[in-house]
């Protein structure tokens, strides 16, 4: 009897200690499971919203592409070339929203590369996320920043407002480069540029004599070219952002699902261990009586 009791006592204290640890762990796992499940629900609904926004954005983008590419076709056919010593304005198209993958970094990296090639370029940033990234490295080049961008599919009105504000600021440039994310497919995008040339650069084009132009019209063309190209950049950027957000949320939901599976297994194992140790207690306790 004396030999048995210490063994019982040891077993009890050990299993009581294990019991406490398991219960605490079980509760933690339960809490974690609850929070991961709610996060999975949120990311799943974000993915649904992003995919509906993406289909709408793609339609706008197709239209903007036809308008924008006729604009660039004009410059290509006129054989307009930027001058080496000309000033450049870089317009970075981004948005205010996060949780959309590497959209903002891609466009910020491309803008930074352009500024490295031409250190006295001026930069206009559209969207708070790119503004945050660019203000870390090239804040002295920034002239204007816009926000409230990316809330809805971009309209030509917005593009006109942006172009008008830029022109009103009297920022001189020979060439403007619009840096945006080109929508390659639902799962991929790439940073690309659209050039917009000033009146003087355009009138020095190689093939300028092929066009009948009255001088007064060149200023209007310049304004329209800027607004048109900004609209194209905004539309493509928005479509790329929605596609990237959709795939980012899809990955997040998948990862959350995997975490839920792993946690459920751990929880069940822990629960079974608690039941087993309780059974052992009961059995050893009963055998001591």
């Amino acid at each position, binding site marked *: 009897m004396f030999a048995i009791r210490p063994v019982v006592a040891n077993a009890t204290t050990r299993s009581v200690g294990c019991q406490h640890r398991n219960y605490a762990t079980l509760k933690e796992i339960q809490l974690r499971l609850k929070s991961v499940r709610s996060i999975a629900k949120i990311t799943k609904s974000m993915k649904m919203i992003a995919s509906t926004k993406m289909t709408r954005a793609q339609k706008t983008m197709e239209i903007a592409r036809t308008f924008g590419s006729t604009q660039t076709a004009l410059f290509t056919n006129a054989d307009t070339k930027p001058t080496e010593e000309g000033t450049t304005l870089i317009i970075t198209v981004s948005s205010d929203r996060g949780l959309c993958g590497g959209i903002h970094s891609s466009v910020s990296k491309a803008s930074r590369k352009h500024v490295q090639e031409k250190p006295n370029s001026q930069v206009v940033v559209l969207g708070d996320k790119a503004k945050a990234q660019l203000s870390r490295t090239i804040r*002295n080049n*920034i002239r204007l920043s816009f*926000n409230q961008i990316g809330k809805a599919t971009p309209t030509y*009105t917005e593009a006109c407002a*942006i172009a*008008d504000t830029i*022109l*009103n600021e009297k920022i001189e440039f020979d060439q403007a480069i619009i840096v945006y994310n080109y929508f390659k497919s639902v799962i991929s995008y790439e940073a690309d540029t659209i050039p917009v040339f000033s009146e003087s650069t355009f009138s020095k084009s190689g093939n300028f004599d092929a066009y009948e132009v009255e001088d007064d019209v060149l200023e209007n063309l310049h*304004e*329209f070219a800027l607004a048109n190209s900004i609209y194209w950049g905004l539309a493509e950027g928005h479509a790329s952002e929605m596609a990237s957000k959709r795939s980012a949320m899809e990955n997040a939901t998948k990862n959350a699902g995997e975490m839920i599976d792993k946690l459920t297994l751990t929880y069940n194992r822990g629960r079974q261990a608690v039941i087993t140790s309780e059974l052992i207690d009961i059995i050893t306790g009963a055998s001591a009586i």
Partner: protein
Amino acid sequence: MSFAWKAAGISYLKYTQICARAVRNALKEEQRLIAQRRDEQGLKFAKWESGKQGELKPIDSAMGNVSV
């Protein structure tokens, strides 16, 4: 060939926006409501001086931004 709106101090973009607004307001009820949604913009902008951001101001779509 001088343009009347240029002489009045309005840019080409502002001129086309005003004309577009006039056309939208002239549409019939149903189409007008859909078209007027395209006329809204709530953008804000800020001027930057030597690495410092200025105050955020909304873009006034009525008469455009006259630089102060």
